[in-house]
């Protein structure tokens, strides 16, 4: 904002910065050249969400990156990719496990967040697919690359079975049902002797990691690379489902029953869309299952355990339910605590629980929602403070000023306010007495200034004098409506004998309005 008020030297006023992004970095494009933007192959989408805007203050052309999330994703995943090869063996293992769980979490987020189905059978799908793939490899001699095909088929199958009751049940009832399915899966696997003879686990599963590399540095690095690709794949699935057609359809039916009815009325078959999302993520979870079996070269019933499920749930909750970045961040935190600080013993589970409780109590939507929550909080505080310091009366508030397109209006209103403040100091009993004695004719300088201001007033609510029944000694005061065709209103029922008295009455009314404004 231009420093208008500083011209008045007597009372320098503190000016506040306008707008929400005054530290934002903005590109200055070359206005003489055309803007050529790279597109994603085979789509019409651009890589980054640059937007061209006109800066209303400097009137220059600028480019703003509206969505900075891709940068953060690239930075963090790139850092992981670069740093991991230099870590000790144990930490490479932790990184690989992080990628694997993050992938599972991202897909689970798809089910809970996008589809809005509160399913707890995620690990059951992963486990069953893993078992099926492992069994096919060990007992049927299927080569390991085909495990990546068996996994999603089984995942799709289990997902299909799980999805059937999801249209009838909702919320907690469905959560309970899926928990039951997980338990049934666990017992099924442990009791089926031919499938898993030793303690319910299948060992010596073929893998993309060669057998003599297993648990060596090369094997760990290869495992990490695989897990990283898995995570990228999960994120791609998330992006394709959540932000494309299916996700958009489901966004209409997101929160409550009214929304479901609304989207149904709009012709959105949200049940079908949900089912599709569920099936897609189940198939993808099947891939994760096959990978799980290959990474450890074995699979055991602990996949189905409630503790494991709770740990995964804690990851999502800490990061923020229903966001992919939340799923990944939460996985990073929890895996780091759980696998990175093994020497802490049972205390680390307690730490995870404490973080989970703390985050839930203080953050509305997990850690990734904390930024928005803080901004909302700061904006609220800001507006509270502004309400304390601003005096009302036509002046434009800084936040309001960014919304007004015609900047002339802002200066006019600010000028008017300052003018009124100045004029208010002129109003004295002597001035009123001067006007009473001679409403027309020559006036002192101050009175002339006040009257000039009054004369410039807008037509709505401007006062006028009415001669009652054409007589010369009965006058009343009206106020114009300011609308063509709408009659003026009578201000009060007082009648004045002379025109001068009426003039003075109008003057008093206006002074009153001025002092009240």
């Amino acid at each position, binding site marked *: 904002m231009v420093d208008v008020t500083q011209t008045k030297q007597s009372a320098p006023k503190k000016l506040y910065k306008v707008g929400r992004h005054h530290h934002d970095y903005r590109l200055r494009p070359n206005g003489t050249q055309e803007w050529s933007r790279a597109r994603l192959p085979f789509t019409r989408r651009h890589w980054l969400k640059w937007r061209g805007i006109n800066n209303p203050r400097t009137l220059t052309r600028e480019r703003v990156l509206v969505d900075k999330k891709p940068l953060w994703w690239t930075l963090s995943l790139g850092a992981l990719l670069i740093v991991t090869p230099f870590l000790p063996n144990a930490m490479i293992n932790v990184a690989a496990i992080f990628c694997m769980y993050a992938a599972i979490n991202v897909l689970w987020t798809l089910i809970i967040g996008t589809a809005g189905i509160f399913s707890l059978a995620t690990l059951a799908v992963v486990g069953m697919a893993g078992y099926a793939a492992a069994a096919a490899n060990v007992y049927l001699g299927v080569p390991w690359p085909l495990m990546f095909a068996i996994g999603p088929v089984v995942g799709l199958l289990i997902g299909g079975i799980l999805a059937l*009751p999801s249209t*009838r*049940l*909702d919320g*907690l*009832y469905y959560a*309970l*049902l899926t*928990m*039951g*399915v997980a*338990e*049934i899966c666990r*017992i*099924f696997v442990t*009791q089926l002797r031919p499938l898993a003879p030793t303690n319910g686990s299948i060992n010596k599963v073929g893998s993309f990691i060669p057998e003599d590399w297993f648990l060596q540095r090369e094997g760990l690095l290869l495992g990490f690379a695989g897990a990283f690709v898995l995570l990228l794949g999960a994120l791609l699935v998330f992006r394709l489902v959540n932000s494309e057609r299916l996700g958009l359809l489901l966004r209409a039916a997101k929160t*409550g*029953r009214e929304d479901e009815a609304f989207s149904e009325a709009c012709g959105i078959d949200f049940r079908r869309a949900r089912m599709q999302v569920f099936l897609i993520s189940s198939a993808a979870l099947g891939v994760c299952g096959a990978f799980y079996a290959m990474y450890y070269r074995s699979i055991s019933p602990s996949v189905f355990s*409630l503790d494991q499920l*709770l740990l995964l*749930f*804690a990851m999502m*909750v800490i990061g923020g*339910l229903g966001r992919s970045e939340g799923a990944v961040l939460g996985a990073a935190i929890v895996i780091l605590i759980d696998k990175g600080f093994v020497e802490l013993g*049972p*205390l680390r*589970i*307690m730490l*995870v*629980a*404490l973080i*989970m*409780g703390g985050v*839930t*109590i203080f953050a*509305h*939507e997990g850690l990734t929602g904390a930024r928005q929550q803080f901004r909302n909080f700061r904006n609220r505080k800001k507006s509270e403070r502004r309400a304390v310091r601003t005096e009302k009366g036509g002046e434009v508030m800084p936040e309001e000023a960014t919304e007004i397109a015609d900047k002339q209006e802002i200066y006019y209103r600010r000028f008017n306010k300052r003018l009124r403040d100045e004029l208010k100091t002129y109003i004295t009993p002597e001035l009123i007495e001067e006007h009473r004695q001679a409403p027309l004719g020559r006036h002192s300088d101050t009175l002339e200034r006040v009257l000039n201001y009054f004369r410039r007033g807008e037509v709505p609510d401007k006062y006028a004098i009415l001669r009652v029944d054409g007589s010369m000694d009965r006058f009343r005061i009206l106020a114009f409506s300011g609308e063509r065709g709408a009659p003026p209103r009578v201000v009060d029922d007082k009648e004045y004998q002379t025109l001068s008295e009426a003039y003075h009455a109008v003057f008093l009314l206006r002074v009153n309005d001025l002092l009240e404004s």
Partner: protein
Amino acid sequence: MDLSTLVYGLNLAAIYGLMAIGISILWSSVGMINMAHGATFAVSGYAAWLASTAMKPVIAAAFGKTLLASLATAGVVVGVALIAGALMGALIYLLAFLPIHDKPNFAVRSLIVTLAINIATVQALLFFFGPRSRGLPKIFGFGRLEIFGVSIRYDQAGTILCTAVLLLVVLEWLRHSRKGLEICAMMQNPEGAALSGVSVRFTALPIMMVTGALAGMAAALLSQTIFVSPTAGAIPLIKGLTIALLGGLGSVPGAVLGALLIGFLEAFTGVIPFLGQRYVMFIQFAFIITVLVIRPRGLGGLLDDTRE
């Protein structure tokens, strides 16, 4: 299969019912799923064990080995379990209800916070007491009693009787006391109750404490049959939760019916030779899934629609 299986089933039903009714009442009145109910269970069990070991010499000195001594032990165990349960309920109220009950997503967030409390409490118990399980004094004594030709163990009879009495007391309190009526009003229509001057905060506290005390009672009773251990709360919690859902959240008769069904199912599954104890959870979940697919709102689920 004989009638003693029936008694065993009734015994299980009584304990699960105590948990399930607590969860059910809490959901319908306050609108939160209390996942820390298992922690309350375990904490009450440990509190009762601590108190009974601490009071043992005192009681022995005062009463010797008389009937009065065992009565005093029973009083200490049950009383401490009840008090510890109520205190734990108050703690959950302070952590999981008070800070977030007027914030967005209360239902999910309170579930998560109580889950966190549950995990943290179990880990804390493991840390302080170790994984070894402890036995509570047998408050009903050892022995069997013959009723209509069925032999019942003392602890089974005592459990069934105590649960019936306690449930009756709680239900009568709900129906006739002023606080109970306020709670009923909140169960029927939380918003309406708030508008007619029932304070949500000051009604939620007694609900939490009463349901916590019910869990404490369940702990004292179940510990007559099995031992107290840090993870002892997990199974009763899952059973209570499933029963509360099976009965339809918010319906007390539904919860009682669900508890009876699940209790008998467990007892009979354990007896059938080719199924055995291993398949108890399997059969139970299969049964619950069948019921839920047929009746999506549980057995007595009517209130759920109004809650949405």
